[in-house]
């Protein structure tokens, strides 16, 4: 029981209060438009006192949020390196005679960690040890392939974040998209191009419906979308498991919980010849980035989205129907996640299995957070995490470092990015000159 006397309670207030960073109170949540915070508030620098006249370019760079992002990645990689080294047997062995020959320890640590990260890099970008040119550049396209669903689902989450909604339900929307997209990929016969377009569309519709449930309930009854979407994720998982046991759905005699392969005409067209897996889905993802950017920054509807995200009460006063916006946001976000699921099955997987979605829905949340809920940021973050995934496989097979380290690195990045003052404190960076204008 924390039963301290009331008199002492006020006294200890400063102990828990923020003491390290200069400006701890900068809530940098999604939808608050964090990226404009650090740099380029020229108009308000005058308010910063005489000191601010020395706001040189270097200082601006150091205090910018891009710097925070980059440093977050660096810290995360260092922490990941510590884990890799700690789990390595050779390192543990050298630690046994650390005081006799400390250099052994450091050399082994450096070798282990650099080997793992180099393999990660080779698997994600360019494999200079490969035997042919095609094999050397294939990792880069693998990064794009892995990034495709992350970008699409990440966009859905980012869009919801900007509108003040937490769409934890990308996982479920993705599964629904994969279910319906896949089903129309093998259950009906259509002419070549129309077939995959129709299947993609159906995937988007399924995701939109699944997201729409959460949006509708939030708009009509005020049900917390976080809880509803988490529950919908679970339901989607069981729905998939149920369908994979039904022969009318699987259309195959095999007892395995997997459907038959989608038709040739439903495959998304390959962008490059055979050893490459890069497919049309990546183009869809790029188009989606463009669409979301246009929607949020250039359209009236997107303005309403952002207005509701910034302040629902003000938006309501201004005549915006908050309920309608909530529903539309969740439908759009769901459609994007549904596209991610459909592109997954129509582009690479070819058949529906129980684990088709993996943890993509949750990875997409980290993508949206790292991208600061902006379309372009989400694209870059999706590519980065796609690179981690692609590289992680090579790292696992070549150096025996489990791919799970990627999860650690990803989550540490997002944790740090969410708390810029912490990163600034670690590196003794200056705080942004002006108070962040929101």
């Amino acid at each position, binding site marked *: *029981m*924390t*039963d301290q006397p*009331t*008199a002492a*309670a*006020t006294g*200890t*207030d400063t*102990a*828990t*209060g923020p003491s390290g960073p200069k400006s*701890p*109170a*900068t*809530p*940098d*949540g*999604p939808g608050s438009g964090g990226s404009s915070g650090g740099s380029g508030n020229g108009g308000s620098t005058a308010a910063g006192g005489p000191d601010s006249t020395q706001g040189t370019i270097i200082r601006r760079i150091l205090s910018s949020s891009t710097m925070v992002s980059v440093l977050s990645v660096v810290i995360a990689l260092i922490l990941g390196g510590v*884990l890799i080294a700690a*789990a*390595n*047997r050779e390192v543990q062995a050298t630690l046994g005679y650390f005081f006799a020959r400390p250099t052994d320890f450091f050399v082994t640590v450096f070798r282990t960690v650099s080997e793992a990260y180099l393999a990660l890099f080779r698997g994600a970008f360019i494999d200079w040890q490969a035997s042919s040119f095609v094999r050397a550049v294939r990792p880069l396209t693998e990064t794009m392939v892995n990034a495709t669903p992350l970008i699409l689902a990440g966009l859905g989450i980012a869009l919801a974040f900007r509108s003040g909604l937490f769409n*934890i339900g990308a996982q479920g929307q993705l599964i629904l998209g994969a279910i319906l997209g896949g089903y129309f990929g093998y259950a009906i016969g259509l002419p070549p191009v129309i077939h995959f377009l129709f299947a993609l569309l159906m995937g988007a519709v399924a995701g939109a419906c699944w997201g729409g449930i959460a949006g509708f309930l939030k708009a009509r*009854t005020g*049900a*917390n979308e*976080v*809880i*509803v979407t*988490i*529950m919908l*994720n*679970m339901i989607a998982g*069981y*729905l998939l498991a*149920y369908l994979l*046991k039904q022969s009318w759905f699987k259309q195959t005699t095999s007892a395995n919980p997997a459907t038959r392969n989608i038709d040739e005409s439903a495959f998304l067209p390959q962008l490059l010849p055979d050893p490459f897996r890069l497919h049309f889905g990546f183009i869809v993802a790029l188009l989606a980035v463009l669409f979301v950017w246009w929607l949020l920054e250039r359209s009236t509807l997107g303005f309403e989205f952002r207005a509701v995200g910034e302040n629902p009460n003000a938006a309501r006063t201004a005549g915006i129907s908050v309920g309608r916006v909530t529903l539309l946001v969740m439908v759009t976000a769901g459609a994007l996640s549904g596209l991610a699921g459909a592109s997954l099955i129509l582009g690479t997987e070819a058949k529906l299995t129980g684990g088709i979605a993996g*943890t993509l829905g*949750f*990875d997409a*949340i*980290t993508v949206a*957070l790292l991208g600061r809920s902006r379309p372009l940021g989400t694209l870059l973050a999706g590519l980065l995490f796609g690179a981690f995934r692609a590289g992680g496989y090579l790292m696992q097979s070549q150096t025996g*470092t*489990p791919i*799970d*380290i*990627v*999860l*650690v*690195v*990803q*989550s540490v990045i*997002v*944790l740090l990015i*969410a*708390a810029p*003052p*912490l990163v600034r404190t670690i590196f003794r960076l200056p705080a942004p000159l002006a108070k962040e204008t929101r």
Partner: protein
Amino acid sequence: MNAKKATAAAESLDHSATDVRAPIAWKFPIIFGVLAVLALLFFGLLAAAGKRTTFAFASSGDFFAIPEVTVPTKLTGIVLGVVLLALAAYATFEAANRRRIPAWVMVSFGIVFVLSFLNWAGGDTGRIPITALLAGSLALSVPLIFGSMCGLVGERSGIINIAIEGQLLAGAFLAAVVASLFSSPYAGLIAAPVAGALVAVVLTFFAVRYWVDQIIIGVVLNVLVIGVTSFLFSTVLTANAEKWNSRQQLPNLPIPLLSDIPVLGKVLFNQNILVYLMYITVILLQIFVFRSRWGLRMRAIGEHPKAADTVGINVNLNRVANTIFAGAIAGLGGAFFTIGSGLAFGKEMSAGQGYIALAAMILGKWNPVGALAAALLFGFSKNLGNTLSAIGTPVPSELLLMLPYIVTILAVAGFVGRVRPPAAEGKPYSTQ
């Protein structure tokens, strides 16, 4: 009595021509009626004739062996359906008189409904193992109950804790590793709360000090814990499983006399220490949250931190302390996955239970006993799904497994009574 007075008063005011009495609450009578009719139809009248269902109570080593009960499926279904109809009629009668439907009616309606379902589902294969069903339900519920208690303490103090999943997993991991290292499950029992509390430390560090959105940290922390535990599992734990990840099990400690009660005694009072800790936690929380200074302060900082601060409660310190304490509870729940059930640690072995615990807390309206009931319900429906698919009944287990989540959505959407979270949850507090 009160209702009669109210009726009399209303009659005396009849000349005013407006009905000032409270509207009749038709919701439960309607739900009961529909369920009763469905049960009578599908589990009774439409059930295939000539089949028999056996309810098995015995488990090995019973003091009193209760004989199995075998009943004709169709006839029993009809009888149970009629009982349900009678209960629904009684509920309607009570509601029409503007009385609250007594709790015993609701409970017995639930039990009879489940019985009639089991009777129907067992008709094809014949045997329903009642004791195993209940014991399994409790086992599946234990982590959920610990998890929902953790969420409850956190949210009552104003910190949303989505990281229950991570805390459960961390607890399971550390419990397994420490128990294995010391070759003693009780060492793991001490380590598990530490793991849960550590996750909570990170949570509060970011939430209270840096004002990061609590839902974001929770989701990210879950990924982080999955990453770290899976990484260590694939490297250290698998490299030397004998040393790091050998199976340790908390022994069962039957309580004398109580554990000799047939069926229920076996299920409730022949368990390991974790389960007894769970009973104690729920009872203590139910008392302390609502009847102690600590609880009053906790609810104050969760509902109106400014007012709490004004009377001298250190809001942030209390929030941090409570959330870390709650994390320790969740860690204990995680221990049930490994040392509690005698399993070695496995990758992502919490498998989304933390999220269900969150749902149980909401369904239980942020109330320890309510959350306990909800968690038991979830555990029961999950185990029912598993049992039914194991004995090969026509009911698809996946649809049954979905049920808790659908119920939660309905609850959050206000179809099953309004649920209201603490007013200030998720909002960082500062005096500036």
